[in-house]
């Protein structure tokens, strides 16, 4: 486990620092490609949605849209509050309240 973690973190450092160094240290005379700039706009939404959709719809691995799945109403509540208020922390707390209440009732 320790070796896995060391390699995981070490690789993340190389990748992240390398990206940040790219233009500031090695990038003289280069310009950032425009197609890549457009593509980058969709990275956060794609990666985060890809992470949470399976957790919300299938927390145990199988599709579960029954009342026993509190993840789904909880995450929908967080998303709806965030969508209308743009207040991240309020959205997370609302999500938790719905999640907790759901588990309490069902």
């Amino acid at each position, binding site marked *: 486990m320790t070796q896995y973690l060391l*390699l995981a973190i070490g690789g*993340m450092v190389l990748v992240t620092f390398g990206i940040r160094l790219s233009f500031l240290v090695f990038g003289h005379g280069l310009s*950032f490609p425009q197609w890549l700039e457009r593509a980058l706009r969709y990275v956060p939404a794609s*990666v985060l949605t890809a992470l949470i959709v399976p957790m919300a719809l299938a927390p145990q691995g199988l599709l579960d849209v029954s009342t026993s799945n509190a993840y789904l109403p909880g995450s929908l509540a967080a998303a709806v509050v965030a969508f209308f208020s743009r207040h*991240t922390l309020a959205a997370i707390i609302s*999500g938790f309240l719905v999640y907790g209440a759901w588990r309490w009732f069902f």
Partner: protein
Amino acid sequence: MMVGAAPFGVIFGTLAIGSGIPVWATLALSLVVFAGSSQFVAVSLIGSGAALPVLWLTTFVVNLRHALYSATLLPYARHLPARWRWPLAFWLTDETFAVVENQLRHHTGERDGAHYWLGSSLAMYLNWQLWTLVGVVVGQSIPGLSNLGLDFAMVATFAAIVAPQLRERPVLVAALVAGTVAMLTRSWPYKLGLMIAAVAGVTAGVWADRKSVSPQATVPGTGRPPV
């Protein structure tokens, strides 16, 4: 900005400890990687035993936007010696970029600009370490944290970050495609499906964007406007 980062630092530290990541590794992620969103993704991936190449590639994709910041700030760093540019690059994050780029574009001269940049970087860095530490302490002081719906905290956090972006049509398309593909590939080993889903989402977003920014009619099949 520093206040805005606080809850994320605490949530990161708490989540990492709750997912069984040791204290040293949690602190190391903040100290040497220092990239909030990829740290969250890493907690989720490490917690589910993802293969190292998948973790590294995902980190690359998630942090690639920093190359854009690096390129944008280059004109303000051209005159600086390498001993300045290396550390400034190490500390380059979303928050620092937003603050520094705005300041350098409007106000400051060359010399003061570099000091402003360095000062902001250090403040954000120390701030992130402090709140990570608070999160680690919180995580350790609540035994059985993982039974208290900790996975859900991650889902709620990510949902809250993504939802406001869905007002833009191409982002909505990207999220729908990424979510659908992730659902279909969720049982693939080593979290490989995550990479596929992310690439599919980004591709769909670019495609939808191209459709929405060029509203003039095109000849079917050729992509060219009618003569």
